[in-house]
């Protein structure tokens, strides 16, 4: 069976600005594939090429075995694209927008009527269906945009930053919905610069940075590669630094502890990197107990995707975001996105 998406050695520059240096991705049918990276990493450009909005300088792009570059129209039928900026016609009602969308995909009127009804149900939009989209909240707009992207029942649904700017509740609605889609066999590709989002949703992840894929695999694999578990320990809600130092010294004696950092910003809590093992928490508790130190809170977790990003690039995703914001040129961005 052909992969849902095959991208090989993709390259794209806008003038002197290199948007994509070399990106290769393989997405299998029925999975949620997450593209993680800071702003300006090349995520959106990759998706725009995939959805036939931009042509690459070089590389191969296929959707369900169909070359996007050779047969763009065929590929468009297989793809649903939900752009980052929700572009609705605010004069149209929700239902009118969906009717327009259905006609653009040549869905027969009778079928369209039934499907529109279904997507409205599915995304909880029935009661707003006859209101102008100009009156919608951000969450509603996104949901309508999602509904529109799904009307033609695409093999692959492509979502660019689907939850940016959404309230928490709408975000969970979108997450749930994407999981339901996956359960029914639709391939979903999402970009995000929210680590938790990719972590919570994606079966496969590619982390891209400066137009290059710097890591790819399942979230689990990527975390295993970084190695070590993370333990956050709070002796008290706000520990005196002498106590924190003492605990640090004590715990460094334990054989499985690799590294300890005292986080002053969080009440002198201790951040430990440990070799994964089941008794870690108990051993730590005993060690502290023996030294008559209390424990306010202790939690063990696997490395996050941020740790993966840090290991691959030497900077945290937050740092990369801040750098990207500093270099952001809204005018150039707009020109790129306009057709």
């Amino acid at each position: 069976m052909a992969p849902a998406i095959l991208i090989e050695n993709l390259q794209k520059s806008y003038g002197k600005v290199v948007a994509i240096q070399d990106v290769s991705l393989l997405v299998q049918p029925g999975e949620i594939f997450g593209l993680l990276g800071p702003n300006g990493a090349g995520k959106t450009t990759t998706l725009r090429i995939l959805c036939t909005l931009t042509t690459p300088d070089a590389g191969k792009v296929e959707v369900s075995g169909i070359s996007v570059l050779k047969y763009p129209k065929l590929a468009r039928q297989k793809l649903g694209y939900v752009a980052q900026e929700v572009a609705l016609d605010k004069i149209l009602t929700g239902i009118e927008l969906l009717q327009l969308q259905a006609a653009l995909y040549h869905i027969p009127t009778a079928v369209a009527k039934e499907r529109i009804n279904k997507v409205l149900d599915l995304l909880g939009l029935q009661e707003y269906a006859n209101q102008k989209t100009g009156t919608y909240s951000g969450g509603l707009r996104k949901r309508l945009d999602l509904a529109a992207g799904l009307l033609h029942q695409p093999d692959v649904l492509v979502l660019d930053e689907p939850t940016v700017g959404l309230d928490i509740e709408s975000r969970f609605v979108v997450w749930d919905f994407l999981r339901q889609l996956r359960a029914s066999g639709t391939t979903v590709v999402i970009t995000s610069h929210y680590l938790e989002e990719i972590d919570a949703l994606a079966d496969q992840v590619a982390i891209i940075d400066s137009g290059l894929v710097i890591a790819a695999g399942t979230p689990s694999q990527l975390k295993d590669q970084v190695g070590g578990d993370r333990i956050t320990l709070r002796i008290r809600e706000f520990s005196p630094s002498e106590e924190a130092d003492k605990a640090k010294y004590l715990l460094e004696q334990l054989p499985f502890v690799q590294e300890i950092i005292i986080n002053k910003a969080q009440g002198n809590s201790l951040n430990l990197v440990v070799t994964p093992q089941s008794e870690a928490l108990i051993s730590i508790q005993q060690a502290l107990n023996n030294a008559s130190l209390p424990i306010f809170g202790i939690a063990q977790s696997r490395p996050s995707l941020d740790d993966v990003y840090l290991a691959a690039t030497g900077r945290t995703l937050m740092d990369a975001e801040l750098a990207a914001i500093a270099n952001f040129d809204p005018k150039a961005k707009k020109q790129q996105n306009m057709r």
Partner: protein
Amino acid sequence: MKTEINWQQVASSSTEVAATPQLSDNFFGELLQETLALTRRLFIQLQRRPSTLVAGIIQPVMWLVLFGALFQNAPQGLFGATTNYGQFLAAGVIVFTAFAGALNAGLPVMFDREFGFLNRLLVAPLASRFSIVFASAIFIISQSLLQASVIVAAAAFLGAGLPNAVGLGAIALVVFLLALGVTAISLGLAFALPGHIELIAVIFVTNLPLLFASTALAPLSFMPQWLQVIATLNPLSYRSNQFVIFTYIVTGD
């Protein structure tokens, strides 16, 4: 390999009717479907935001009244033996209104570009992207014909009389061709220029100068030599000629 989203598990239990969309041989059916849908959108917009149409009707009527008054004392016979200035002007205003309306056709498309709505059309498997052009043309032509009807009625009310059937047909044909051609140019500009500011600037410098350097308001014989040259080259003067249209006017008796 899935071909259908199994929505039933979350929604109703009714059976899904349609299969996966396939590239159809029905090119003209698809073209018609998408063109009608895009045209419908434009008409819904007009219906809910009629201010541009209202302005587009008031303005030419104002032209008729004001320019009619301005040239009230023009010498008899200047516009041909049987034509009075009201008739001459009505023809010019119809042509100019159709021209100006069509010149604005690119604006909605430009805004669609800027707001990203156009991307929605471009990622869809349209039979042909000309459907975007056709929809605009149908919309603008309908609007221009409506405006022309109002102008003819207003001119009649102001004393120019009503054209006969052949005259009306000629008006419709000229408006149709002019709106079609200028809409095409405007849409071309909407895709070529970087943004709506530039498009508005082009419309701004084109509109009124073309009006005054044409035979819409005054005949060639009224103009100095250099202006005659420009007016002759001006597409606004190429209306199958106001004299032709209004020769067929039934002048009252």
